[in-house]
């Protein structure tokens, strides 16, 4: 475990206080957050490039916050990669080994394996300026991993890449991580990237870790409305806990004048009667019912009728806006293309939708 606790630092008018972050060893840790919240500052502090005012950074059981960067065993991959332009690819790759005086057979074999895995053997005598974007990414990764760092910091290295190259490097990062098992802290504001790469995700909003957990925990079960909003989650509806509700195992939420019975574990925490909540309904989990087809007993309780107000083709799925009859709300429904084609939906059409209780997640309006 790599522990960052009670970190305090300032940069100009920007300040981070009491920040704590635990990184699991051997996994791909993601620090996810909007731009301008200080993610890079945190990376620089962990690396030792920025003086911290308070706090502890523990790596391998030792406090490292007072060590200079070269003594920390932390490799850094910045967004612009910073390949040394006056050195060949081979010299770039060997830079860390030379600086750390690592010259054992194991070190050489490790570098050789990296060169093989990254498919850069044919580039060794070339200079960085002659390489393509993807080749530069591979070389920079190889250079960072060559001295076998205890932690690899990656500061949005894929942010400037076009989608196909980004996808290629993401796959490479995943397979490299699977085979080498290094510990990484990857900083990004890109939700898709975080979801794809992150074994453990920490969400940084307004200078504090708002939530941490697996990708499922963070993306499907946001702890606060702030997290839900940052993740761009749709179908967030205000409701409140029904007075007759809590029996410990289940809760009843008042939403749009109807009572929705949910298992208690589908809420962030135990709730009290009358408490205001936000109900999150996953758009990809809403079922559009076919005319004339029998509806399962479990679904009958939460059926809405209304009209299709808009359909947007999002390429990989269809985005259907549904307005329930008599309500001033709009539901977003994500349908896979093949389902959409079978349903023959059109704007203005009246349909019925079913909301499965397992598709809901209850977030208290006041987090506690």
């Amino acid at each position, binding site marked *: 475990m790599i522990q960052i606790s009670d970190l305090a630092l300032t940069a100009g008018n920007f300040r981070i206080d009491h920040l704590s972050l635990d990184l699991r060893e051997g996994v791909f840790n993601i620090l996810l957050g909007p731009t301008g919240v200080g993610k890079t500052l945190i990376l*620089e502090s962990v*690396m*030792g*490039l920025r003086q911290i005012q308070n706090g502890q950074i523990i790596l391998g059981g030792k406090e490292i916050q007072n060590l*200079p*960067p*070269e003594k*920390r065993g*932390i*490799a*850094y*991959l*910045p967004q*612009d990669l*910073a390949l*040394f*332009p*006056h050195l060949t690819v081979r010299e770039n790759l060997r*830079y*860390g080994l030379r*600086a*750390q005086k690592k010259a054992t057979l194991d070190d050489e074999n490790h570098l050789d394996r990296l060169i093989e895995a990254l498919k850069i053997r044919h580039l060794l005598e070339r200079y960085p300026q002659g390489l393509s974007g993807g080749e530069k990414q591979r070389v920079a990764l190889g*250079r*960072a991993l060559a*001295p076998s*760092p205890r932690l690899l*910091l990656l500061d949005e290295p894929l942010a400037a890449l076009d989608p196909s190259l980004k996808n290629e490097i993401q796959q490479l990062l995943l397979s490299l991580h699977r085979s080498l098992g290094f510990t990484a802290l990857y900083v990004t504001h890109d939700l898709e990237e975080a979801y794809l790469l992150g074994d453990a995700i920490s969400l940084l909003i307004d200078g504090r870790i708002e939530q941490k957990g697996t990708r499922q925990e963070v993306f499907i079960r946001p702890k606060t409305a702030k997290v839900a909003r940052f993740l761009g989650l749709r179908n967030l509806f205000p409701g409140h806990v029904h007075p007759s509700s809590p029996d410990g195992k289940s809760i009843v939420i008042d939403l749009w004048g109807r009572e929705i019975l949910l298992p208690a574990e589908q809420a962030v925490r135990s709730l009290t009667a009358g408490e205001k909540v936000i109900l999150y309904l996953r758009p990809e989990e809403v079922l559009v019912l076919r005319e004339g087809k029998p509806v399962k007993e479990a679904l009958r309780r939460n059926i809405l009728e209304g009209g299709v107000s808009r359909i947007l083709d999002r390429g990989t799925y269809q985005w259907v806006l549904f307005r329930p009859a008599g309500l001033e709300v709009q539901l977003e429904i994500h349908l896979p293309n093949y389902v959409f084609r079978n349903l023959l939906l059109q704007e203005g059409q009246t349909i019925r939708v079913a909301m499965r209780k397992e598709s809901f997640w209850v977030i208290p309006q006041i987090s506690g």
Partner: protein
Amino acid sequence: MKILRTSVLAALLLFVFYAVLIFSLLTSFEGRGFWEVFLASDTLFAIRLSLFAATLATLLAVAIGLPAAYALSRKNFFGKKVVDTFLELPMIMSPIALGAALLIFFNTRIGETIQSRGLLFVFEFPGIVLAQFATIAGLFTRLMKTALDEITPRYEAVARSLGSSAWQAFWHITFPLAFRGLVSAMILCWAKAVGEFGATVTLAGTMAFKTETMPIAIFMALASADIPKTIILILILAGIGLTALYAVRLLDKRTQVL
């Protein structure tokens, strides 16, 4: 396109202006006596003194200007903007004023103490070096800062994360990348030091075979109305300066090719 053509015309006009100046020297230059003046002991002394003093002043400017430029480029510190502004002082201040300021300084208690300890500047060789240093140090620091600003600090950050100390990261990464900028700045400042007159004459005076640099030799030849010698000395000085500046252009060209 019209604006480009006008700009090219302006550049050509400038070239013609300076070429006419040199050409006017050549029209008054009889050709005979060039080697006689060139090989005369006072000319050779002036050339040697100029080259030696300018080299020393340039090395001093590098020794102080390089770390100063590095600090100005990489660090934020209290008073940075003031320091940065002061670097341009020699460019906005007349060299004579700079020399006069130095002369006055050596008349203060601190200056006199320095002189009384045996380190003589006024009307002495160290005075030439100091006057030239005062003229070029700011310029050198400014040129080096510009060269260093173009090198992202992330190179050093990465080098340090790979195990290099701050000094090693500078030496192995930043220094080689800034090397061409350093050599260009050195040549430019050296050429400026070779041609420096105002501050030198004020602090070191015009003593033959003692403080007679090339510009002072020109001044002395002109003062004694020896026009042919003046022209030859000007041509020698222009030759030294232009060769140095052409070397900078060659270096820039190589940088662009790479």
